[in-house]
């Protein structure tokens, strides 16, 4: 029988919750470059290192490109490695994102999501993380500071699993979560957390006693096979993520399914979103239900690998699925990345809901319960009139209206 874990209930924002998780995960190396709204994650980790609460090496670098490069080196040497960034910082890392995953390095990174320049916006949307979709990182979206803390711990377990060995990204809303204080349970003593994610010695690392070369050129005879291993690793990650969720829930009592639903069982219309505004959506569902609308909510927690089984299972009985995306794929008819993903899955299903793609909250355009209610009403009306739009709806743009 494992000893009972004692928790401290602290007022923390998501950035500080992540810093606590990094400390409790006994990370060896942190390399990062400051960018709003991520900065205080690394500030707090520096404080923990300076206080002696975390025994880690902090590498100060001159850019995000260097930050992730330093992480690649440290991870290749066998260290447990963490970094954090947002927006342009993630874009500057982009080249190294592929190197980290291609070298199969279990780096964990958090993203305080932020809109991309130009024009400059320090505010939240998911354009940055969506741009990293094809970089072969396991990617999670979280909805509370508690979930951010818990997910960083899970991320190390997933990344370092011998069947996975891929880097993991945990993304949460810049400002809306990174700067909002809320209650978070953190471990009184990090020992049980560290026991949950013991440091493994079973991957190939740089070692002068047993020399290996990492990252040499792969000729056409072999490149494809090596990349196919990443395909397999992602398939394994799908299983390992779910196993980790179960183990975490069993050990610590908090469960975050890859797809979460709320009041969806008897709903005719389902609204799917991710990140902080899933909370707003939940409260919107209660308001709409009290008015007799048959609606429910779906939260996508896992983005890569895409949890297609759970998504299909959740939505198959719906008449209409509304997917509220927070990034734009410019020039696509269906411009919401998650909407596009789900629509491609539904092609193989005989029973399937209509799908309505909505873009919301770009550059932190406010999203309220009322927005969700109006979107649901519009969806219900169009469903009734059999004219669900065949292209994305851009909700909340001044001068653009739908009826």
């Amino acid at each position, binding site marked *: 029988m494992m000893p009972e874990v004692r928790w401290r*209930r602290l007022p923390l924002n998501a950035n500080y919750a992540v810093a606590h998780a990094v400390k409790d995960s006994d990370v060896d190396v942190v390399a990062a470059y400051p960018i709003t709204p991520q900065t205080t994650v690394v500030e707090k980790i520096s404080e923990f290192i300076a206080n002696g609460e975390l025994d880690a090496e902090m590498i100060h670098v001159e850019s995000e490109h260097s930050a992730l490069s330093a992480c690649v080196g440290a991870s290749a040497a066998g260290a447990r490695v963490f970094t954090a960034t947002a927006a342009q910082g993630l874009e500057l890392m982009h080249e190294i994102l592929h190197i980290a995953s291609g070298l199969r390095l279990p780096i964990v990174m958090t993203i305080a999501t932020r809109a991309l320049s130009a024009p400059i916006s320090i*505010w939240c949307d998911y354009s940055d993380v969506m741009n990293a979709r094809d970089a072969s990182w396991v990617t999670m979206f979280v909805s509370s500071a508690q979930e951010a803390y818990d997910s960083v711990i899970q991320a190390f377990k997933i990344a370092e699993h011998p069947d996975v060995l891929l880097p993991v990204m945990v993304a949460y809303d810049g400002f809306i979560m990174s700067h*909002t*204080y*809320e209650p978070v349970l953190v471990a009184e003593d990090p020992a049980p957390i560290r026991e949950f994610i013991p440091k493994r010695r079973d991957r190939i690392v740089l070692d002068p006693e047993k020399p290996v070369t990492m990252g040499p050129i792969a000729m056409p005879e072999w490149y494809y096979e090596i990349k196919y291993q990443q395909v397999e690793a992602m398939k394994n990650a799908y299983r390992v993520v779910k196993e980790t969720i179960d183990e975490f829930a069993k050990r610590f009592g908090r469960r975050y399914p890859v797809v979460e639903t709320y009041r969806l069982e008897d709903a005719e219309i389902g609204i799917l979103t991710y990140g902080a505004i899933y909370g707003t959506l939940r409260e919107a569902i209660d308001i709409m239900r009290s008015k007799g609308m048959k609606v429910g909510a779906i939260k996508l927690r896992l983005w890569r690998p895409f949890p297609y089984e759970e998504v299909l299972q959740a939505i198959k009985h719906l008449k209409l699925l509304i997917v509220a995306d927070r990034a734009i794929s410019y020039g696509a008819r269906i411009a919401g990345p998650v909407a596009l993903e789900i629509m491609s899955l539904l092609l193989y299903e005989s029973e399937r809901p209509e799908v309505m793609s909505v873009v919301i909250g770009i550059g932190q355009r406010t999203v309220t*319960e009322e927005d969700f209610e109006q979107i649901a009403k519009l969806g219900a009306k169009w469903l009734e009139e059999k004219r669900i739009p065949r292209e994305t709806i851009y909700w909340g743009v001044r001068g653009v209206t739908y009826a």
Partner: protein
Amino acid sequence: MGRLEIRWHGRGGQGAVTAAIIVAEAAIFEGKYAQAYPEFGAERRGAPVRAYTRLSDSYIYTRSPITRPDVVVVLDPALGKELYLPGLKEGGALIINTKRSLEEVKKMIGRSDLRYAVVNATDIALETLKRPIVNTAMVGALVKVMKELGLAPSVELDSAIHAIKAVFGDKLGEINAEAAKKAFESVIVG
């Protein structure tokens, strides 16, 4: 669903954001649920600043901005009322740092549905902190107003002081706690 939404108005440097966080921390220390967040944007000393606290007896899911607060707390008496009155709920409470009397403030604001409270937080801050940083005094005033008007969920003075000490550390925490206590005792609620 017991919830109380508070909007703080001050100028950059007066500590409105810290005040919003202190009240949330106090509620969290009491085992309640809370959110506190600044008006998200670039911060400049002297510019009007808003911050928000949401208190609840149950888990808070929403991430919507607070647009219809139950309570408005004004740290800077020189802010125009057009900055802080919009959205304040019918029957809500307005707490102002001012040297003026309750009657003068009521006349200046001109809304008969509101509950009013005045406190000379600037003098309290100058006396205790030797600096015109009024945020912790206004926390003390808010705690008293919540108690007097029976607003819920609320926080106790003890937990507010605990939060103040957690935020400011030992030495600064002590004098800031003193400012909060003085404002708690001297705020006039009408």
